[in-house]
């Protein structure tokens, strides 16, 4: 959801004269929404700007974002950073699968509660 929100904001700022770059770990959602510039790092959700505690890599990724701002000349320009997740690619086979719940059960229950409350407000015309 947060990739969709950030993509919608990028589009609105860009429509109003502010150049943007979206830094994201998920590539398909911003691409689907349609953003002007997307810097994709093929990392797990939570680390779109570099691996935790890897300052030099985070700095390098931010520099890619600057260069993308400077050099893109058409919308939908996507650059993938060259870094590989140091822990390997196993996470790609686990995320959002039956092998591993995205949220622990108690948090999923809380999420469902909030979702239901949103539906109710929408039904009442308050959303």
């Amino acid at each position: 959801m947060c990739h969709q929100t950030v993509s919608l904001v990028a589009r609105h700022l860009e429509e109003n004269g502010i150049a943007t770059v979206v830094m994201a770990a998920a590539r398909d959602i911003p691409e689907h929404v349609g953003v002007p510039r997307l810097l994709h790092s093929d990392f797990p959700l939570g680390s779109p700007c570099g691996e935790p505690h890897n300052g030099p890599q985070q700095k390098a990724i931010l520099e890619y974002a600057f260069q993308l701002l400077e050099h893109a000349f058409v919308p939908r320009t996507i650059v993938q950073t060259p870094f590989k997740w140091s822990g390997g690619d196993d996470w790609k086979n686990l995320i959002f699968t039956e092998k591993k719940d995205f949220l622990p059960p108690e948090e999923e229950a809380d999420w469902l509660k909030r979702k239901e409350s949103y539906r109710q407000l929408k039904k009442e015309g308050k959303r």
Partner: protein
Amino acid sequence: MSMYVRYIDRTRDYYLEKGYERSYQWAHFEDVPFTRLSKPLAESRVVLVSTSEIAERGSAEPEADGHQSAGGVYSIASHVPAEQLFSRTRSYDRGATTIDDVGSFYPTTGLHDAVASGRIGSLTTHFHGVYNTYSQRHTRERDCPEVLRRCREEGADVAILTSI
């Protein structure tokens, strides 16, 4: 190199498998706006906008109405150092990474370093956060204009946007 994860497909299958009947309809646009830089980055004022539920340590929990499923916009002073910030989010890949280093999703330290080195001109006084909501209409019609207003108020030329 293995292919990147297609989250739209993956989450649809995941929630269908769990018994949720309807899959989410993601926003989609054919036309994409584009603005060239109006001046060199070294002369530009940069704003950071994030959906990472970033917060200052010790700050109060946001009110329910401004939290998560309801959307909403808030701001944090850009001078607050990373050590005083944390994320309230639960939506990240806990099996693979952590959010205990703010720099991995909220590049405030990098942006301040970039000002110091002259790579970018300056930063806005505030950075902005946007809460997620299922309602694309609310994000588009209420939250996006509010982010724009706050960016304009502080003369932002360029926006760096980060998700989590």
